[in-house]
Every structure is written in C-alpha cells, then in structure tokens.
C-alpha cells in the first residue's frame, strides 16, 4: 500500500510532464528549420500532450471523489474522538471505584484480623471491670467526681496513708509482732496446707492463703498492707482519705 503514489503527487507529476512537453513543442516551433522535428515526431509530441491533459482531467475527478471521502473521514474522526473522551472518563471513574473498594477491603481485613485476635484470647468482662476498678481506685487516672479545691485526696499516696503502711508501722512493734506470732502458730497447726511454705525456704515476700501478702520478719511473717482488702484496725477518719476500701469489690 505504501508504494502507491498519492493523488497529489500524481497531479504534480502530470503538470511537470505537461510543462516539459509544451517546452519541447514551443522550442520546436521557434527553432530554425534545420533542427526542427520531423512530422511524425511532432505529431507524437502533440498526442502525448493531449493524453497528459486527459490524464490530468481524470486525476482531478479522482481528487474530487477523494475530497468527498475525506469529508466522511472527518465525520468519523470526530465520532472516534468523542468515543475516546467517553472511554477516558469511564476509565477515570473505574479507577476511582477500584481505589475506594480496595481501601474498604483493606479495612475490612484489618477488622477481621482484630476480631480473630480477640477471639483467640477472650477476657471476661467481669475481670476487665475488676481491673479497671483497681487501676482507677488510687485516683491517679482521674480526680473523683466530687473533688473540689481543698479536698485532701491526692492522686499519689499521701503521708497519712504512708504512715498507715508497713514502713510507717515498723516503729510499732508490739501490736504488729503479736499479731504475726498468733498467725504463725495457727498456721503451723495446719499441716500440708498448700499455700504455706516455710519462711526460710522462700524469699521475703509470700502470698498467704488468706489473700494477704506477708513479709518474713525474724521467725514469723507479718502481714503487709495492700490496699485491696478491708482494714479493720484503722481509724475511720484515716480510712476516709483512702477511697479504695469503699470501691473495692471483694477480698478473696
């Protein structure tokens, strides 16, 4: 197909040819008699000129037809252009949709993973609430709702509370030691109790079956003050600064 000559080139060639032939003829006409062409040759030239002229006419007709086809071509090109624009628009929309869907799927996957994680280690809500109570009992997370300026409660242990603790009661040996002795005797009479381990074989701190933490002092153990159980021996006023007793749910 590419070896075919275009109509434009054909027309131009014909015109060039006609120019040459006409030059020949005119030169022949003005040439002196000696170098004039013979009759038949002259006739040949003239015939050639006329043939070229007819060819030109036909090619011009062809050019007219091609102009018509060209118009159709233009209309089609405009249509194709419109389709191209539509396709581009649709492509953009599909791309957007794909993006939105992929985001949604990703987030859904993450949710499923967290659900699976949660199902693998279930935690009872009771326990969660219990721990939440214990954590917030010291008021370190948030002040009590009824707290005003001048309220003696603090998010850290105050000096009163510290004095009520073990270190604060070290200088009060009579009361504490007697209690420890009594506890020890009663415990020794219970053989093979699962929770009781000889104090010398363990470290200083030990959990006692009654739920209190004991520290060994000399030959006995002394109960430690942990906040989570009711303290019967303390003053009511002292206890009022410590809100844990009012909010603790149980002591084991």
């Amino acid at each position, binding site marked *: 197909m590419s070896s075919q000559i275009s109509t434009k080139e054909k*027309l*131009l060639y014909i015109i060039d040819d006609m120019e040459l032939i*006409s030059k020949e003829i*005119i030169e022949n006409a003005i040439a002196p008699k000696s170098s004039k062409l013979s009759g038949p040759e002259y006739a040949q030239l003239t015939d050639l000129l006329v043939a070229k002229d007819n060819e030109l006419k036909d090619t011009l007709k062809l050019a*007219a037809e091609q*102009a018509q086809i060209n118009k159709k071509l233009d209309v089609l090109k405009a249509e194709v252009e419109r389709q191209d624009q539509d396709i581009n628009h649709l492509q953009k929309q599909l791309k957007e949709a794909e993006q939105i869907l992929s985001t949604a799927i990703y987030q859904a996957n993450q949710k499923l993973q967290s659900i699976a994680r949660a199902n693998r280690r279930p935690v009872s809500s009771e326990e969660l609430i219990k721990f939440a109570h214990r954590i917030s009992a010291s008021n370190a997370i948030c002040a009590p709702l009824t707290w005003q300026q001048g309220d003696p409660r603090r998010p850290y242990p105050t000096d009163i509370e510290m004095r009520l603790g073990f270190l604060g009661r070290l200088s009060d040996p009579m009361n504490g030691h007697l209690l420890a002795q009594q506890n020890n005797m009663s415990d020794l009479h219970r053989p093979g109790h699962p929770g009781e381990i000889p104090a010398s074989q363990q470290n200083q701190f030990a959990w006692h079956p009654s739920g209190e933490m004991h520290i060994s002092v000399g030959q006995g153990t002394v109960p430690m003050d942990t906040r989570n159980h009711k303290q019967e021996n303390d003053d009511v006023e002292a206890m009022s600064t410590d809100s844990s007793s009012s909010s603790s749910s149980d002591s084991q």
Partner: protein
Amino acid sequence: MDLNVTSSQMLDTSNKRLKVEDLEIEILPLIYEIIRSVEKDNHHDNATKTRDSQDCSQKVLELQKRLDQARTEIQMLAGIDYSKEQQLSHLEALKTQLRLKQELLQKYRYMYPFDIQKQ
C-alpha cells in the same frame, strides 16, 4: 480542447483548502496560442514582428505562471494526500475503530459485576 474541470460540490470549505472546481487548469489553450503566435509569419514590418515576439514572450510567461498557480492550488486541495485505495482502507480502519470503541463503552457502562440477589 476545453479543459474546464467542474465538480458538483457546492459546500464551503475553509479558506486554506480549495475545492477541485476552483482550479484553473487550462494549459492547452495557452500552448495553442503560443504556437500560433510563434508561427505567425509576419514579414511585413519590424514593428509587428517585435510586437509579435513580445506577445509570444508574454504568453510564455503566462503559461509559466499558470503552471505554477496550478501547482500551488493542487497543494491546497484537501484529501489527496493518499491514493484512493489508501484512503478507502483508512476509512475502513476508522469505521472498525469506532465500532470497537462503541462496543467497549457499551460493555463497561452496562456491566454489573455485583449482583445483589446473590447473597
């Protein structure tokens, strides 16, 4: 020897492009005139001779001008950059392209991959 090329197109095109009917390709009459004036043998007086030769050269120039004008006008014609067969195949290709693009659009506009009934 009349060479008027007429075409049936009556529509208007842009200024840069000419229609075939605007061409002036009347070369043969000019050549005929030149030959005739060359072969006019005027031996009567020198004035006529010089006038005749002037006429001749003028006609030759006119022929040249006509040819050049024809060339430029041909350049400005629309739609003749390819041969007829090439043009027709181009047209077919464009039609196919249009059809394919329309089908593509049809397919993707009205496809519905997510069937809500299937749960």
